[in-house]
């Protein structure tokens, strides 16, 4: 009986509080709180909250593709927040950090490229911005074709 209770306790502890589940829940809550802060105009705190999220280590139980998606979405949002705060250098830094995680033909890479282009444009680096826009459009167009043809997934 003692062994059975220990097994149940260990299983419940692992299942309820596994690092992957907790990390994803925390990421979701960080975005929800950032929504509220952005609506109230507190862009700085929203940025800090999202920065804190990307600074945390990713638990081993999260599949690499999912970790990349969560982090790239957050970096893209950080870039957008920085642009809204009039800090294109910070926006460029966030977009670069997101793209360094790897690049796939998905909405996250497309957004990061678009925000990177906007940051470069704001910094007066128009030629580089044009290349980023082109890269972002290529991804978005490919995804749009897939979506219109068969509703492709990721």
């Amino acid at each position, binding site marked *: *009986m003692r*062994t*059975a*209770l*220990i*097994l*149940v*306790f*260990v*299983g*419940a502890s*692992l*299942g309820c509080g*596994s690092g*992957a*589940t907790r990390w*994803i*829940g925390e*990421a*979701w*809550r960080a*975005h929800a709180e950032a*929504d509220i802060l952005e609506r109230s105009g507190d862009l700085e705190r929203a940025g800090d909250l999202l920065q804190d999220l990307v600074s945390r280590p990713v638990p081993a*139980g*999260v*599949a*690499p*593709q*999912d970790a990349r*998606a*969560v982090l790239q*979405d957050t970096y*893209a*949002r950080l870039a*957008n927040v920085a*642009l*809204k705060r009039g800090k294109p250098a910070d926006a460029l830094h966030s977009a670069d950090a997101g793209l360094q995680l790897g690049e796939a033909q*998905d*909405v996250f890479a*497309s*957004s990061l490229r*678009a*925000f990177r282009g*906007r940051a470069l*444009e704001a910094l007066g680096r128009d030629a580089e*911005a044009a290349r*980023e*826009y082109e890269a*972002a*459009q290529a*991804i*978005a167009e490919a*995804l*749009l074709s897939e*979506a*219109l043809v068969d*509703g*492709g*997934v*990721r």
Partner: protein
Amino acid sequence: MTDEERPPTPAELREAELLARALEEPSQPGRELTSVDDALGAAYLLRASKQAELGELRARAVRQRIWRTGTWPLWARAAAAALAGIGAAAVILAVRPRGPARLPPPEVRLLQAQLAAARPGSSAELAQLEVETAAYRERFYGALGRAYGRRP
């Protein structure tokens, strides 16, 4: 004449006398050691070893004290087995490697917003991209929540 009717031999008389003396004065120091003493000693040793031996009843009592499985009723044993099964399943589910979540396909409106934002322009395109991204994020985290066991 039978053996019982025959008068004791001097050797038998001597042994009987020594036996009587040994029984009457068992702890008298300095008395002569004889074969009777040896026999009595052997008898004591045998009796002592017999008393120390683990009899059937004592062995069963010791077994029951050490290993109490026999005392559990059937329902308790079934409950323990069920709990162990649930616990083992929970452990396996918790530590199993997770595959990547099946993320939802992006909406056409999100892709159009990305195309609009990926060109020089005003912040209006970025605002629209923000709205569409937030809607996609909702679905995206829903898929992650399903894949990782709990909806955030």
